[in-house]
């Protein structure tokens, strides 16, 4: 085989790879669009008026997750499954965002932490790597941490909307999450950095609860509140 032939042959490989990436990028772009739509739906819970409509908004988000599942199903067809990690970077960002959105919906619905299994189901993917397109632990955790930061914002806005009860429940939830993360032995990676942000969320929420307590606004929740 001459050098020219060999390089011609190699070009074939490179073209195929580039095409795959192009295909993946397109689906991912659409996926991001859908994720942004879900976000827009859920962001309305921060509005004073939005608090009563939470169930409504969650239902609407649930519908949009159907579209997410369709797009992810499409994504799976774009590359051989054993090369998941070869192209991981392409969808990592949107996958973490989707986990966040799923976790946020579940929290709003039930005030509970979504499990990895649940997220996987909502997104139409696998938990176990061997079974196919799956959800990496790191990506699951990253999504959960994004939600934590959204919850600290929610705690603030709850008070503004006159709901003095919710921040206490959020505080308990976040504290539990924090304890959970403290069990983990995180490397010095992006996840670790994100986790460092959790401390600020915890503190922020504690200060909200403090503000309510010192004004005697937190008491009433003690009777009615809790899970």
């Amino acid at each position, binding site marked *: 085989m001459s050098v020219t032939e060999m390089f011609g042959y190699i070009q074939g490989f490179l073209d195929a790879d580039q095409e795959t990436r192009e295909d993946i990028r397109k689906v991912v772009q659409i996926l991001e*669009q859908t994720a942004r739509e879900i976000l827009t739906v859920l962001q309305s819970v921060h509005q004073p008026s939005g608090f009563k409509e939470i169930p409504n908004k969650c239902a609407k988000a649930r519908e949009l997750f159907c579209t997410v599942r369709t797009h992810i199903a499409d994504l799976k067809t774009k590359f051989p499954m054993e090369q998941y990690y070869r192209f991981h970077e392409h969808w990592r960002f949107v996958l973490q965002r989707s986990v966040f959105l799923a976790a946020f919906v579940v929290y709003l619905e039930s005030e509970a932490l979504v499990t990895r299994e649940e997220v996987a189901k909502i997104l139409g993917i696998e938990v176990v790597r061997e079974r196919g397109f799956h959800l990496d632990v790191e990506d699951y955790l990253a999504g959960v941490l994004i939600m934590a930061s959204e919850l600290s914002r929610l705690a603030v806005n709850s008070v*503004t909307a006159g709901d003095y009860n919710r921040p206490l429940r959020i505080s308990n939830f976040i504290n539990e999450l924090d304890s959970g993360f403290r069990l983990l032995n995180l490397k010095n990676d992006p996840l670790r950095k994100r986790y460092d942000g959790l401390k600020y969320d915890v503190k922020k929420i504690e200060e*909200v609860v403090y503000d309510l307590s010192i004004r005697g*606004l937190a008491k009433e929740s003690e009777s009615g509140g809790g899970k």
Partner: protein
Amino acid sequence: TDAAQDESANTCSPVMAAFKVFQQELDVKHDKYERLVKLSRDITIESKRTIFLLHRVTSVPDTTEILKEADTKLDGVRQKIGQIAEELRGEDIYQFHRAYTPGIQEYVEAVSFLHYIRQRSLISLEEINARLVFMRSEKDVAESAGAQVLTFQVTPSDYLLGVADLTGELMRMCISSVGNGDIDTPFQLSQFLRQIHDGFSYIGNTGPYEVSKKLHTLRQSLGKVEDACYTLRVRGSEIPKHMLADVFSSRTALIDPEEGVV
């Protein structure tokens, strides 16, 4: 070939002749570019001044005077934009876009800030462009009859970037309002800012690169405004009563906190 080396002969070689033309062309272009940069800088300064001026509305009882002054200032800015339009007549506007985009963005910021203070709404791109229609001066008209009207079109990107910066000013306005005991404005502002924030997160990373860069600042501004409203709410929840030492015994008598705010 030796003759070509000679400097005096050089000047009449075709290469030198061509480069003299290039020199001409490049200089004309650079000069125009520089003039546009200068105009843009003037626009930026004057728009920034207008914004500074407008921030005074939070601390005075009657805002008419300030708004009038801002109008006058922005009229001056629009005149400068007219000069840009003049420079761009017959040009590909995108060729010089980088020269004047900072000024235009700052103008969008200023004009949308004024609009918000007056109307409590977001000025549209059309509304902005509608005010950037200029009549040509007599002299110019004489030269080339016909088209008497000159327009300037703010691009959607510049509009977006200006609005993104507006949020920073709105945040500052909110903080100042709190500082000046204005209760309504912060809540209105938080509502408005949230809408803009949601708008930007809807656009996400499909917009120009600079927008994505500003998203973080926007999110921070929103956070500050939400915090301010929160503070107002919790502080407003307390009964205006001398010495609250006994507040815990009369806790059940707390009035609906919703009322404390109005």
